[in-house]
């Protein structure tokens, strides 16, 4: 059976998508050395650079957020596979500067191995890099050690927070501090409804029966906390939100950033319906949604489902979120 995707040779997926992306947004991004998506309009060398790494197949993440006020470089691997250490080191080295580099890594085994090896190389060459690991998936349980929690969509608003601080001229320690503050105040929980096709192999990445959903599913089809019958949008949202509110410790009077991130085939219509419940339910708890974002940020091909994200915000973080940025998939004026 032919795969129901518009692709050419599966071996060239990543290179072709990166070419297409950088051609479409050539005013914002360029492709360097095959797999490094960089700002066209480079940031001045006396400001901290923000670098990340990750597999492809999650578009617009991660490379869709390269640009003024967010990422300087995204080192892209292959479909769902982290780039190798040499490529990651190349990205760090390219951004080397006295002001330093903040290196944002999502907690997935491959990403972390590549990042650690690249950091070793960077140390050897005396680069000024600080690494920060995101690990905000609460599916394995709120009290699970950080190293066992995956990094999900939370990296994207973290790029924004760190990027804004960097753009404002903050030192590497300062950029790290705000990024880590956000990192420690955020949580994500995902739910899956329909599988996706792995575009290299044509295989489904997981199975769910026609009347099932799964809360806690990871962004590569890694199983979650258990399957259940499909629930309504409001029921699903309430179950997830309850856990997220607990995870970030939000209480009456607190302000939060709330995000619904579509996995691919779940419509914006549904995401808005889910967000409606989130907003209402938080309001009942006296928690204010100070800022929000709804849409496809980090997808898993055409998977049905979404990630619900919550972060406790203070005035400093809100100001950083509001700062202007100009990337292909997030622009704030």
């Amino acid at each position, binding site marked *: 059976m032919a795969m129901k995707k518009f692709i050419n040779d599966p071996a060239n997926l*990543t290179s072709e998508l990166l070419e297409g992306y950088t051609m479409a947004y050539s005013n914002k991004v360029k492709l360097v050395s095959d*797999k490094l998506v960089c700002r066209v309009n480079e940031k001045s060398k006396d400001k901290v650079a923000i670098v990340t790494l990750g*597999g492809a197949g999650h578009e617009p993440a991660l490379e869709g957020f390269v640009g003024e006020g967010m990422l300087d470089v995204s080192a*892209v*691997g*292959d*479909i*769902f*596979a*982290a*780039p*190798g*250490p*040499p*490529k990651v080191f190349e990205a760090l080295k390219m951004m080397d500067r006295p002001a330093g580099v903040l290196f944002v890594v999502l907690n*997935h*085994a*491959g*990403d972390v*191995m*590549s990042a*650690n*090896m690249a950091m070793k190389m960077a140390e050897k060459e005396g680069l000024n890099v600080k690494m920060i690991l995101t690990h905000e998936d609460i*599916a*394995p349980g709120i009290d699970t050690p950080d190293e*066992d929690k*995956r990094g999900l969509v939370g990296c994207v608003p973290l790029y924004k927070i760190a990027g804004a601080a960097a753009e404002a001229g903050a030192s590497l320690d300062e950029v790290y501090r705000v990024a880590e503050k956000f990192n420690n105040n955020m949580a994500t929980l995902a739910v899956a409804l329909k599988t996706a096709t*792995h575009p*290299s*192999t044509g*295989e*489904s*990445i997981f199975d769910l029966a026609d009347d099932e959903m799964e809360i806690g599913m*990871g962004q*590569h*089809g*890694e*199983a*979650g906390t258990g399957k259940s019958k499909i629930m309504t949008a409001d029921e699903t949202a309430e179950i997830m939100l309850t856990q997220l509110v607990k995870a970030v410790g939000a209480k009456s009077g607190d302000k939060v950033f709330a995000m619904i991130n579509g996995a691919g085939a779940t419509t914006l219509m549904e995401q808005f319906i889910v967000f409606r419940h989130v907003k209402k339910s938080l309001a009942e708890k006296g928690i204010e949604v100070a800022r929000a974002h709804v849409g496809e940020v980090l997808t898993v091909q055409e998977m049905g489902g979404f990630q619900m994200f919550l972060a406790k915000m203070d005035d400093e973080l809100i100001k950083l979120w509001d700062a202007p940025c100009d990337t292909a998939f997030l622009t704030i004026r």
Partner: protein
Amino acid sequence: MSEVNFDMLCRIMSSAVGKIRDNHEELTKLDSAIGDGDHGTTMLRSMESVDTTIAEASGDDVKGLLYDIGWNIMCCDGGSTGPLLGSLFMGMSDGVEVETTLDADAVAAMFRAGLEGMSVQSKANVGDKTMMDALIPAVEALEAASKEGKTIAEMFEAAAIAAKQGAESTKDMQAKFGRARNLGERTLGFQDPGATSISYIFAGFAEAINV
């Protein structure tokens, strides 16, 4: 001749590539069950780079060849597999001299160094349901056979058997590393894809070795 030289190393590496090529679809299926379904594709991509590295190698620098093999695998952007497999070969490079032929003991020492290289990245041990469950027994088998005075061919035969048994033993394990870790008990009953890859690589070595 009872030594492994540059040419023989190239030959056994290519044989390992062939084994992965022949079985990459099975590896992907195994990874679909408890991972993200890309291990076969990644292994194929990574191992095919070995063929290219060999084709581009000149002279008979065993150390340099192994280093290049490892580095080029890491350049394949292969998720966990790149750093793991890459550091296996780069570790092996650390364990040998520049221009050399290896006797039985030196072969065993080279693989021990490779295991140490991978361990730095891996942190896993036997029983954790990873590549280590095949690699550790394979290296131990090489060492034991070399101590017993077996031929290099016999050593690799023992290693291939040990790797295969190690890979099969992962069926009864719960994953402690990698993407499968989150699945906990649900990984029971499934053979680990990475351990299976290692066993195919050793099967490839054993088939091609003739010293």
